[in-house]
């Protein structure tokens, strides 16, 4: 295939780079890192949570707060809404990653939804994924400063496709997962798993720079903050 030619190209490009640098210089550069690496408040502190909520709402995510498991159950049920029986007579389906908390899964089932469990080894087919009413996942970390939720593909967050194709994403974030700044978030993440950083529902500003929420990704993003007293 391209192996022989591109290996020639590899040496050629690297030689050109070295040649260029021999003309323009290779003095080592000192990198100043004077920027903030932590915010004014600790992870999970009430002020950190308030900031996250403010940022999420600003970018048109819907936010619920649940002080405990009982409130979480209510919040999940509220977010899903009433199941509307499909024309086929089947119950509407919700997809969940294989490692999602069993109690949450029971809540979804109890609310009258069919639960589709997705995993890397047993994925829900794409066309089926396109028909589910919602996906419920946990998260890896949330960054208050920017209103960002990071999913890293762990078993309670799942394959990237399940949080992409359904039109409604319900994401449960624990208060202790909420950090203040981007550097705090990056420090908790590794390159081991594919990541998706989500800041509000999908959006476009391509038409006259006016923002339209909800293009190809989920048009509704609901975030349930657990362990944060409803303010």
């Amino acid at each position, binding site marked *: 295939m391209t192996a022989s030619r591109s290996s020639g190209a590899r040496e050629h490009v690297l030689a050109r780079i070295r040649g260029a640098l021999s003309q323009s210089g*290779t003095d080592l550069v000192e990198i100043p890192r004077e920027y903030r690496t932590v915010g004014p408040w600790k992870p999970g502190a009430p002020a950190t949570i308030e900031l996250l909520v403010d940022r999420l709402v600003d970018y048109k995510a819907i936010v619920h707060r649940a002080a405990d498991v009982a409130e979480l159950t209510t919040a999940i049920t509220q977010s899903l809404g009433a199941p509307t029986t499909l024309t086929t007579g089947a119950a509407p389906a919700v997809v969940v990653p294989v490692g999602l908390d069993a109690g949450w899964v029971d809540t979804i089932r109890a609310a009258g939804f069919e639960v589709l469990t997705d995993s890397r080894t047993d994925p829900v087919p794409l066309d089926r994924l396109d028909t589910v009413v919602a996906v419920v996942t946990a998260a890896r970390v949330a960054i208050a400063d920017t209103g960002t939720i990071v999913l890293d593909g762990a078993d309670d967050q799942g394959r990237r496709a399940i949080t992409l194709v359904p039109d409604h994403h319900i994401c449960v974030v624990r208060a202790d997962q909420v950090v203040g700044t981007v550097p705090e978030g*990056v420090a908790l993440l590794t390159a081991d798993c594919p990541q998706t950083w989500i800041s509000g529902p999908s959006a476009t500003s391509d038409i006259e720079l006016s923002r339209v929420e909800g293009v190809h990704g989920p048009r509704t993003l609901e975030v349930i903050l657990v362990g944060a007293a409803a303010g």
Partner: protein
Amino acid sequence: MTTFLGVPLRRKPDPELRHPNPLRGSESFPQAARHELGNTQLRANLAHATSVIRAKRAAVVNEVPDWEALRDAGSAIKADVMVRLPELLEQLEEKVTARGGVVHWARDADEANRIVIELIRATGQTEVIKVKSMATQEIGLNEALEDVGIAAFETDLAELIVQLGHDRPSHILVPAIHRNRAEIREIFLREMGDAPPGLTDEPRALAMAARAHLRRKFLQSKVAISGANFAIADTGTLAVVESEGNGRMCLTLPETLITVMGIEKLLPTWQDLEVFMQLLPRSSTGERMNPYTSMWTGVTPGDGPQEFHLVLLDNGRTRALADTVGRAALHCIRCSACLNVCPVYERTGGHAYGSVYPGPIGAVLTPQLTGTTGHGDPNASLPYASTLCGACYEVCPVKIDIPSLLVMLRARMVDEDRGRKVPDGWSAAMKAASWVMSDAGRFAAAEKLTGVGRLVAGKKGRISSLPFPASKWTAARDLPSPPAETFRTWWARERGDQS
């Protein structure tokens, strides 16, 4: 209605090429700008869009207390990347390969296109979906694919508007910034094939039409092509920053992913994301964070494309790298903040630059990527497409001193022209001025002539049109009326006794 023709393709195709060169127009910037400035619709669209995005950026940058410290770090990190480019590229290649990706190297656009074509052919597919990517614009990939019978579908809304409109991108971030909602509606109704008949020009309705149009493509496509915003050398991770979710669709659902990336887009370490994920979104779309960022490292079994190819592209970057000052243009992270603040870009739009990289950064990057062949080369005119006001430097998240680069490149263009036998207007005028000013008597005589200028300027106090050769000046800008009295006559009158 036939008023929605927009900006016609004025670039004459190079007889050598079937398709226009993505990095070089057929006219100099002043010639092309003159056409573009005549389009009042274009000017209105640009004025509106750039003022909106400027205000958004300013608001979210002002809320970051350590913005300048982030810029300093960003600038130094990119300078460090340039110095250590060979070792960082080898490290990236090693990490990507270890995680199941395949790395390819391309010396130029043709080689990159050939590699991508072979990779697509190996899958047996004849259609691919694309994430918005400047690198693939730069190499003319869509046209190269079309030539061999592979259809490339742009999935970013603005790129879709450009593609359906048989148009050219005019902005790095918002390639259809030159189109207003009514024009976009016309394009969709005419070209999309499945646009709802009652489509209005509401941005929401237009975005939903694009969603419906692309949905099946996303779910069925086997091959996707992307660029990359960042590649992290010490982990082999690639990052794509986007808004609509089309990027996630392309990066997640197909079986094969091919990413084309300029060799300069590296970051040395994972930690460096903490700087660039703050700098880029706020500078680019004026958001605290863009809606979606995807990061992946090689292939992840059971999640996403199971075949991943990374094409590392030179295409002139090593030419730019050889210049001590000029290589700073390679620090660019393609945020487009400099376009939005540029008084020249705001009026001419992106097409006048003749390159897929327009605006201030385009004016310093394009001529360095292509090299210039002297006076007649349209790219030799690009360093002059600026007032040197410095706004671009102020907003650049990695502190590229674009005004200094422009001045350096202007000097280079003048040097390239020194060997010319026939002097151009500029050097003839300079020679004449030198002759006049080197002699007191000649200078005094010339000063007397300024009285004529006052007559020409008249009551409005400006001279807007003069005969040749002075018309070369007045065609582009007014000349202020000369003062009633020269400095030397004033001095003689007021302080003559002291001299």
